[in-house]
């Protein structure tokens, strides 16, 4: 059995993780108390905070030891002893790149968005959101996770409601209530689990590693699994719990959309792996066909609906549904390839979606519209912008050599090993993503530009290219040389799969000649 639940991971000399969580939150509070008219200063201070966070994230990435599956740089202190809550954080292959993703996207969202009014509070909210997201990804105490998980809602709500579009109030409320409802189930499930654990051992704790040792009957496990999943399927979102997302993405400001789709969607898929698979391996295994099916429906359905969207932001919302369906597929495939691909694809999706939203923001700022029908012929007027968009589009449709392919291919390979027909169905998404992305690209960028486009559409400027540059660089780099990331993710993925397999007493999927030598009709069934 893999050591997914080590009693104590490798502790580190410096509490890097505490720093990286608190740093943005403290900076956020500092910016928050600045006078309203000090927007410029707020941006500078916020930038310093984010830069420091990013430096820390990169440091963590380099300190992180390759080839180990357990938690690293663990910080563990009793926090509220009466309730058994501890300040317990650690990083492993699952959370490492998600933390990096947050630290990367937060400044990009802030500087790429260019919100012109009430800058101080905007900067403060982005910083607090950054800290809360990092906290959620690193928490190893379920209660602390829950606090950070809920804390992400507040900045998001205010960002959508304060800086959003016409229907921002409705969008913010729908998003808030929908996710809150899911979280209510998570809270209930968490308390029940802790209660059961206390009745068995006599100690009240919310520590993930301890709770994983709780003995559960199968039916209880399924019940708790569903409670936990409720929060995550809404957050991700997974079909059919996605209806808040098109509205929220459309109405939120670009920075909000980048954070919502780029980072917060990963809270859901992360939660599925970290909590559902760790705490409830049997229920996860038995209910995997349900989730695989929902994932496949999401892939196909999201792509089909995306094809018909007339609005770029809604299109990205549905394409996210489709892409996140792949992540779900990878998670519930229970093979090392599938899970590794799923974890990598979380990162990839964040990069690609963020880039898409930023590009939409640039086009909107120039033309005043994100309606696809009001655009056309942009490639003639702004060829560089069009070229960058093309790269992002190709990454989105999974072109080999760009990052989207690596994740998608590993997911499909991993799924194919154990769940062949789901992989076959999901491969349809490979076709459909080309259909809706290229069609949208054709409508907006090909053709002859009309006079409005010619007069208002400007080529991308230096600042904008600098903001996009790291994303494009990552898209290409991960596509060509993903090995450094895969080497860090795979051990964790292996141990999670081993954990699920051992709880269900199944052998890992067999590949290669040995399986086919033993069974003559290994394939082609």
């Amino acid at each position, binding site marked *: 059995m893999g050591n997914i639940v080590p009693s104590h991971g490798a502790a580190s000399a410096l509490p890097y993780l505490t720093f990286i969580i608190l740093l943005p939150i403290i900076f956020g509070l500092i910016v928050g108390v600045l006078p309203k008219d000090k927007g410029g200063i707020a941006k500078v201070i916020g930038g310093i905070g984010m830069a420091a966070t990013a430096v820390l994230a990169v440091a963590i990435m380099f300190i992180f030891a390759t080839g180990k599956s357990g938690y690293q740089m663990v910080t563990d202190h009793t926090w509220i002893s009466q309730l058994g809550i501890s300040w317990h954080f650690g990083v492993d292959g699952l959370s490492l790149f998600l933390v990096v993703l947050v630290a990367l996207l937060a400044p990009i969202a802030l500087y790429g968005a260019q919100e012109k009014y009430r800058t101080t509070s905007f900067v403060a909210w982005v910083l607090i959101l950054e800290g809360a997201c990092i906290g959620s990804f690193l928490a190893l105490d379920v209660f602390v996770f829950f606090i950070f998980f809920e804390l992400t809602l507040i900045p998001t709500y205010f960002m959508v409601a304060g800086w959003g579009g016409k229907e921002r109030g409705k969008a913010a409320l729908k998003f808030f209530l*929908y996710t809150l409802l899911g979280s209510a189930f998570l809270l209930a499930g968490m308390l029940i689990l802790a209660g059961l654990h206390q009745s068995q051992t006599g100690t009240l704790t919310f520590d993930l590693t301890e709770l994983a040792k709780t003995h559960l009957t199968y039916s209880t496990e399924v019940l708790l699994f569903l409670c936990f999943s409720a929060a995550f399927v809404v957050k991700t979102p997974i079909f*059919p719990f*996605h*209806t808040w997302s098109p509205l929220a993405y459309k109405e939120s400001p670009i920075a909000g959309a980048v954070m919502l789709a780029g980072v917060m969607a990963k809270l859901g898929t992360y939660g599925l792996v970290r909590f559902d698979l760790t705490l409830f391996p049997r229920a996860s295994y038995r209910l995997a066909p349900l989730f695989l099916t929902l994932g496949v429906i999401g892939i196909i359905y999201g792509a*089909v*609906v995306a*094809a*018909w*969207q007339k609005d770029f932001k809604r299109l990205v919302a549905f394409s996210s549904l489709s892409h996140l369906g792949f992540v779900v597929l990878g998670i519930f495939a229970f093979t*090392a*390839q599938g899970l*590794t*691909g799923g974890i990598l694809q979380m990162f990839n999706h964040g990069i690609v979606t963020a880039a898409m939203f930023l590009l939409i923001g640039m086009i909107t700022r120039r033309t005043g519209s994100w309606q696809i029908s009001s655009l056309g*012929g942009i*490639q*003639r007027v702004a*060829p560089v912008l069009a070229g960058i968009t093309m790269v992002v589009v*190709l990454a989105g449709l999974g*072109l*080999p*050599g760009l990052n989207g*392919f*690596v994740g998608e*291919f*590993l997911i*499909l*390979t991993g799924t*194919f*090993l154990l769940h062949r027909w789901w*992989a*076959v169905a999901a*491969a*349809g998404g*490979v*076709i459909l993503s*080309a*259909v809706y992305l*290229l*069609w949208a690209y*054709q409508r907006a960028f*090909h*053709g*002859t530009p009309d006079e409005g486009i010619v007069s208002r559409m400007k080529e991308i400027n230096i600042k904008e290219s600098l903001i996009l540059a790291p994303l494009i660089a990552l898209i290409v780099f991960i596509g060509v040389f*993903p*090995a450094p990331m*895969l*080497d860090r993710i*795979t051990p964790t993925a*292996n141990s999670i799969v081993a954990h699920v397999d051992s709880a269900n007493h199944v052998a890992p999927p067999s*590949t*290669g*000649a*040995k*399986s*086919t030598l033993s069974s*003559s*009709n*290994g*394939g*082609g069934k």
Partner: protein
Amino acid sequence: MEHAVIFIPIIPLFSALFLICFGKKLGEPLAGWIATIAVGASFVASLITWIGVLGSHGIDRTFIQHLFNWLPVGSFQVQMAFQADPLSVTMALFVSGVSALIHLYSIEYMHGDKDFPKFFIYLNLFVASMLILVLGANLLITFLGWEGVGVCSYFLISFWFERPKAATAGKKAMIVNRIADVGFLMAMFLAFQSIGSLNYSNLISSAPHISHTTLSAIVVLAFVGAMGKSAQFPLFGWLADAMEGPTPVSALIHAATMVTAGVFLMVRLSPLLALAPGAAHFITIIGIITAFVAAAAGTSQNDIKKVLAYSTVSQLGYMFIGVGSGAYVAAIFLMVTHAFYKALLFLSAGSVIHGMNDEQDLKAMGALRALMPMTALAFFVGWMAIAGVPPFAGFFSKGDVLLGAYQQNIFIWLAGVITAGLTSYYMGREFCLAFLGKRRWEEKPKVKKSARSSHAVKEVHPHDPGFKMLGPILLLACLAVIGGLLNLPFASSLKVLEHWLAPSLGVAPAPLHAASSAVQWVLAVVDAIVALGGGYIAFAIWSKKSKHPELEPVFLQNAWYIDATGDTVIAKSGTKLAEISADVIEPVVIDGAVVGIVNIAKFVGVGLHRIASGFVRREALIIAGGTVTLLLAVGIRGGW
């Protein structure tokens, strides 16, 4: 010397990157020259690699250059690695060679285009991808190149993106290829599941040990991928639409190189294919259907490039007949010679289009022989070569394929010979319409909008092009004449290509009825007679008159309506599905369920909210009443 293999794809790739950064500053024609030189350098690297491979023998002729681990996940290990062996070096030589010529041609052809540097970026990227495709040491690297050429083809077909037709054609090519690519993906999944590796060496060594069904499934799925890329029935419609791209693109991508990728893949997998005769039959049948259907469609086209497009589809069908009947060398032989004469034909057609100010309608040409003598000569050579008239290249290569077909099944051979007659006929028709007969372009002086703004609409003065266009044409014409020397059937020692390629190929099961030397002579004579006969019929019919409606039925002009049907069914139903999903299912069913729950909550809330009237004393009374009731309830339960 084999180490030069890495430079073959890298040089054009870096050239493309360089041009992305500086292409605009360099402008015309410098960007074009840099791109051309890069591809030329790639050809030199291929030559060096070739010499290196020649230096070793037998199994050592496979040299694999590992660069780094591309996708290492547990038991799944894919290397970024390139393979130099007789097959891949042959492919690299002809791909980089033909590409270099077409690059040179493009410098003149694309003169004055607004996006001149961009064209060469795409072209370089394409060549790099194509070389990655042929040099890949495992299926996934091949897939990397495979998708790369697909995307470059998309860029280049929709190069004149302001024309809606071009943009749509590019998108269609990409999507049809993606549909087929799912087959390729599935083949890789299955290969990994059953063999545990995607390396060609492992696939080939493990092939005898895995079950027959699995093997057939892998081969058939890979062939599905090949059907898209190589435009086989019924997925060939995109190739005709792809003629919206600039003519050098049609020559390079949609005739000489990219579309042959499917044939290459199947030949690369020939050791597997040789063990799966059922799959091989399937390939043969698809091949012969495609060859015939496309050749028939070619007899009725009026666009100078569309005739060549259907001709390409038909010739690719021949290559698959070769692959399916186990004549792998013949398939490669035909592929190489086809690259020569089809590139020649396309470039000549481009020269005609260039000289006619972007006129592509055959019915509006005629009598160009006198005005464009060199082009006419080149086109004539192309006609003879593709028709299979001895001693041109096509005679030998097509003869080898037909011999392979004959040894498998005489009916397939028969269909192949009939198609060969059609080939000679439609090429003859095209030649006659374009170069012989009367001048028809002066009859209807029409105002035609030029695709490239720099070409103002002016009077038509057809002329032979300059040396940058004519040079490649004449060089290809020479190759089309002497290409047969690669693999002469007269003696075993003259079968150079066969001996050279042998280590890379699978050994097909011995033919059911091997043809004796005498029979082979008879077959060759039949081929020659059919080729000449088809050509003569075309000459007799079309050299005088340009209108024979009875010989151009509408269903052939529309290519049997196969593509139109697919378009209608798939595109219409798909659009409808998307519309229903987005406008009905999403808001009404799924969000409706959510909104429904919200409405229930709202309804309950509205009912309860009457209690909160806001009148202090009423609310106080409710509180008091509630307290009393509670106390009473507690009291009564307490037995009081």
